[in-house]
């Protein structure tokens, strides 16, 4: 069960209309290392985790990623909502506009749609947690590239918040991996 809360996790601000920046930032909505991929990866891997800490971490981080998806959507929506067709054409966002107007859709920065092949759910907790740690680092790197590309200080502020959360999640997944290793090496006594 999930309950919706009518607020953002972080006050996502946008200074001005900027379809060029929206075209880049949308990759964290529907790109390979974006928030949809992160959330769905963790929420589907959690069922086969062997210890309670791992089930909790994947549930809670998977849920927080949904809140990050909403923050990224808010940035993109507000970067393009007042854009003119001329601005959209100048930014090279016209192929997106042709299919989606100014609606939110799950694509990467180059326009490729989201695919489940971005994620894996292996059933092996060591393999899955290593993937999760790599995913957090890839998302952290993406946020750094987006910060390099951003010419809007308000958007940069939110991108910095999201980058920091990737670092915290990486730390929690690393601790979870250690706990799973401990569990696997502990003696199982059945009588």
């Amino acid at each position, binding site marked *: 069960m999930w309950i*919706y809360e009518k*607020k*953002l996790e972080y006050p996502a601000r946008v200074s001005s209309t900027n379809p060029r920046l929206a075209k880049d930032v949308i990759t964290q909505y529907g790109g390979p290392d974006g928030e949809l991929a992160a959330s769905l990866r963790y929420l589907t891997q959690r069922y086969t985790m062997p210890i309670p*800490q791992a089930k909790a971490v994947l549930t809670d981080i998977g849920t927080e990623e949904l809140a990050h998806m909403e923050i990224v959507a*808010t940035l993109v929506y*507000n970067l393009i909502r007042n854009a003119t067709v001329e601005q959209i054409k100048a930014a090279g966002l016209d192929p997106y506009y042709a299919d989606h107007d100014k609606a939110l859709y799950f694509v990467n920065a180059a326009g490729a749609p989201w695919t489940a092949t971005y994620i894996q759910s292996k059933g092996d907790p060591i393999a899955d947690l290593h993937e999760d740690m790599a995913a957090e680092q890839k998302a952290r790197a993406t946020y750094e590239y987006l910060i390099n590309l951003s010419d809007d200080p308000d958007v940069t502020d939110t991108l910095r918040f999201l980058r920091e959360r990737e670092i915290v999640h990486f730390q929690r997944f690393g601790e979870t991996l250690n*706990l799973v290793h401990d569990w696997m090496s502990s003696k199982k006594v059945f009588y």
Partner: protein
Amino acid sequence: MNNRQSALLRIMELEFAAIDLNLFLDTHPDDSCALTDFAAVSQELMKAKAEFEARYGPLMNFGFGLNQGNTWRWIESPWPWEVNFNDCKPYGEE
């Protein structure tokens, strides 16, 4: 910034602290300092949310937020992507 936004920002701060402590406790379930902090933050968060909802309508759906009065306040704007934290007005009221 209007009163609604100030109250909302306070809730966002408290809830962020609760989220971060929650994740920490997932892998450190016996950490007494974190447990104490979580209890304090969570109590203050629930108080702030109750005050906000009494004034501005429910923050959560499906019965987890109070709907007071004779109208269904859940559908009232602003939605999260419509709040402009840069100034006093939600986007919808520009």
